[in-house]
């Protein structure tokens, strides 16, 4: 008799537990404080080093380059909320948020751009790296200022010249 009635006990469980679903979206919060959501790049801190782009597994962060500008493009539609970018950013410009309600009817809302101006080479005047990055490097080590203002091409050419001269060349 007891065994036959066993399944009925579920009614007791149900009445004890009551309603467990929440009235989303009117009831907060749906995620806990440990949740990893979308990220935000603080444009005032970012130096445009590209470390986050390199670490990002699904290419949600991309580097768009032109001679004048360097742009970090964040496409949240691809982001897997892993926060690898948060880990690797040398200046803590990337902050993780708990945002996950990202639906929109305008695709532009899913993109975020961090725009950098290129540094100008002291020798040839062409754009390289970013201004911020050069500032950052110089700040870290004052000695490097002289070299930091030169583009990699000019630096290479100078070294080659120096080597050639030592060998008794020009």
């Amino acid at each position, binding site marked *: 008799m007891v*065994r036959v009635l066993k*399944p009925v006990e*579920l009614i007791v*469980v149900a009445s004890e537990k009551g309603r*467990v679903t929440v009235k989303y979206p009117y009831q907060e919060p749906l995620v*806990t404080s440990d*949740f990893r959501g979308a990220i935000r790049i603080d444009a005032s801190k970012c130096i445009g080093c590209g470390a986050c782009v390199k670490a990002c*597994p699904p290419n949600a962060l991309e580097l768009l380059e032109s001679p004048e500008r360097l742009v970090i493009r964040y496409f949240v539609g691809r982001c897997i*909320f892993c926060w*690898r970018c948060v880990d690797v950013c040398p200046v803590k410009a990337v902050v993780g948020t708990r945002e996950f309600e990202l639906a929109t009817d305008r695709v532009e809302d899913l993109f975020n751009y961090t725009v950098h101006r290129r540094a100008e080479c002291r020798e040839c005047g062409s754009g390289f790296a970013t201004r911020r990055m050069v500032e950052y490097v110089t700040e870290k080590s004052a000695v490097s200022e002289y070299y930091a203002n030169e583009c990699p091409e000019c630096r290479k050419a100078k070294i080659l010249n120096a080597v050639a001269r030592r060998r008794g060349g020009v």
Partner: protein
Amino acid sequence: MPGVEEYVRLAQERGGRWVVHGDTVHLVVDPSDLRPIADKIFNEYGACFRTCVGTDERPLNNHFSITHLFTDDRSGLYIALKSYLDPENPVAPSIADVVPAADWCELEAWDMLGIRFEGRRLERLVLPYWWPEGVHPLRKEFDYKSRPDVSLARSERVTLRKEVGTVPLGPYHPALHEPEYFELYVKGERVVDVRYRGFHVHRGIEKLAESRMNYQQVNFLAERICGICGFEHSTCYALAVEKAAGVDVPERAQFIRSIVLEVERLHSHLLLLGVAFHLLGYDAGFMHMWRVRERTMVLAEMLTGSRKTYGINLVGGVRRDINEEKKSKVLSELGELVKDFKRVVEIAVSAPNVKRRLTGTGLLPKEDARRLGVEGPVARGSGIDKDARRDLPYAAYKYASFRVPVYTEGDNMARVLVRVEEVFESVSIIEQLLDKLPKGPIMAEKVEIPPGRVGVQVVEAPRGGDVHYVLTGDGRPYRWRVRAPTYANIPALKVMLRDQRLADAPITIASIDPCFSCTDRVVVVRDDGVVERLEVGASW
């Protein structure tokens, strides 16, 4: 019980080469010796066949290669049996007649690499039928971004068998909302034969990793192999790379991995139990099972930052620590969970309709289970006592004591009961490991991965053994081979469904807790009973 010497002797006797690297015995033999050696390892030594790996090694040494992976679960050994094949015309003898479990992986190596297997019928398994002949995507010269030209939509007539009725089950599973396609041939109410067409979309994950990811990024790709046991895959990948490169992973990281792996098992088993009740028309049981399951999801979010246990594995360790506060939260939550689960599951399993529909249906005899190399609860429900956590210990499992439940009935009930018991074991493992959690860092100091090394790892996922094989390359895996447990379990459905009632087919299919990868297809049943599959082959 054969040990390292016996395995080494297999290559020695036939003039092959061998290397023993940690727990892995690598044997390199002539292709003509593959079959007798595989036969001996599988049928005489009773080792478990896990998968085979085809590799295009032409850029390295101008050869293709095929590697059969076995594990000897009694001596805790991995055996990698390898042969180099001709670069122009790669041919290997098929071992599928002596090792039936190798059936699919040989077909896959044929599809993906064009390795021809002699002594068996070769047919498409993974590639869609509209894929052009002679294009093998895992060959190194195939660019991962290239797309073959194909026409847009074509339909394939699947069957027109007169003597039996055909019941298409798919393209979506009635409960799992995933695409797969079974064709059940019925006589009256009885299923007399089954055909399976799967791999509806092959995501090319291995190719992607071998082409554009770096070692650490692959962890995040590996997770996405499965929407349920993602952490198992990233752990398995990380362990394989760490094994290959000899990375020294801190103990604490290994403990955290094991803890999260068990949380994952909890949510996976609770999910399946709920689905099983739903399929049997017992929705009250389903709802309550999922109510209990929600607790594990919150635990997962607390430990990993994601309800889906994503995002914390790296080669060399983990990214999130467990502090004292979390530890006590997990423990109290688990206590509640066990009480709740015990009560609900006892009620649910004693419901008469559940009991009757599960008992005696979907039978898988032990010998078939062994031959087909089934994994996890499917194996343990058919009397095969294997569990990689105990037999090939990894992460921190050697520090926990637990029981491996085994049932000999081989029916749907047995597979359900195995999972029910495993829930209790998992809770106990988490408690033990949290208690013993050692202090220290959670990430290795140095992660250096030299090219040309091989790592093979099996991780016991909720559905059975995951297998990852990594041949390291320059900045990324040169070859990464993944085998999920469902891959080994689906072929056994042929046995389980045959001679059963049609009405039990959905629950029997669900009883292996299958994981199919996804895309849309359409099955059209015409008036005259012809079943047609319509495929939308993109012209991208």
